[in-house]
């Protein structure tokens, strides 16, 4: 009887621990992913940079302007003048990929 109770408790603890471990891992990964956004990105290393991503803003050198951005999980929201760009970001090797419903933009890292 006691052994059955103990087995149940142990089972619940194991399940809980399993999920908690997963949680820690995923949080670290997401934080890392956002940190990885920071840097200078462009179409290639031989061209002018498209933008410099800072912790809370994106600077577009061709336009001499910065825009605020936010992230939520793997989504990125860039607050342009009068509208918000919404897309998904991910990394493919060392490249940054910004995806929308219709297209995918790939940028190489020019500067960390």
């Amino acid at each position, binding site marked *: 009887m006691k052994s059955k109770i103990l087995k149940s408790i142990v089972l619940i603890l194991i399940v809980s621990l399993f999920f908690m471990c997963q949680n820690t891992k995923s949080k670290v990964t997401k934080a890392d992913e956002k940190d990885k956004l920071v840097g200078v990105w462009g179409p290639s290393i031989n061209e002018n940079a498209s933008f410099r991503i800072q912790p809370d803003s994106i600077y577009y050198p061709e336009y001499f302007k910065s825009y605020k951005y936010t992230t939520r999980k793997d989504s990125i929201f*860039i607050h342009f003048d*009068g509208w918000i760009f919404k897309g998904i970001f991910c990394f493919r090797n060392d490249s940054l990929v910004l995806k929308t419903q219709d297209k995918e933009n790939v940028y190489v890292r020019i500067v960390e």
Partner: protein
Amino acid sequence: MYNPDEVFETSSGFKLLTSDFLIFVLMPAIQTTTSISRYTSDARAQSYTGEYNPGNPTTWGTCPLCGCSFDSSGNCCCGGVNGCGCQYCGATITCGSTCYCQYWNGGGCHCDNCGTDYDCYSCHDCNSYNGPCYCSTHGISYDCTSCPLCNNSGEGGGGGGTPGENTGLINFGEGINSETVSQITRNILQEVMSCAGITSLRITSTTRTPESQASAMYDNCENLGATNQKDLYANAGDQVIDAYSQGKAQNLSRDQIIQMMISKINEVGPTNVSKHCANPDVLNVIDISPSSISNQGAFENCLASNPGISNFIAPPTDPVFHIEIPQ
């Protein structure tokens, strides 16, 4: 079959309902440990088209597109489906459109044939049928017998004439030099607008001169440092920044350094320094505000398919639709 009232009963008499088990044990574990993927429909982001500072209602002000106040949720009424009140005359206009009443009595349209300046809202009727009348305010060329604005806007005006195929409105942002936008470019923009089924767009920038490029680069080097700026440019731009550094090392004045930078820009080729720098007689470069485009997807597809456009860059690579049109 799931039964919330089913009881887990241990042999020690400890009872736990299935529903309790799910609520108190499994669900918290799942909620805190896994990311439940939800589609985040940000209605505000989709509907507002004006400028506002999320989270700070005191800075929302009025919508620059239509002059209306943002609602309590921060939405600009321009993005709504109902009519929007014009800030100038109070007339109900289509949300997101421009109310041309602001040009009443202000002139702004000009007929090349008879040299008459007139209020764009009236229908100018010179004697030159089929001649090239041109509205400098809105960048529209049209048959002089038709009035582009009063026919297109559907509001007031003198009426008369039949609008041609090129009926879209090309608006220019404040301080934009519309003279560098050629007729070829305007015609191509009309084609794109017609293709995409949109009625208006707003140009926010045109071709940049080497002087303005050098001036902006100088200011950035002053504010952020030459090293910081070199991260952002390819070889040609780096040479311009080197010219800045040389000028600073020689203690030259701002004007002298900018002159050195201009010389370097011309030496390496303006288009190699910035895609906004070009000779407008050879290449028209224009930026169009995405917030002025009612259907961005269709617009982008039509830009891609227009043979008159040599290059275009869309958000998020650029914050605007950047378009290059050879002349």
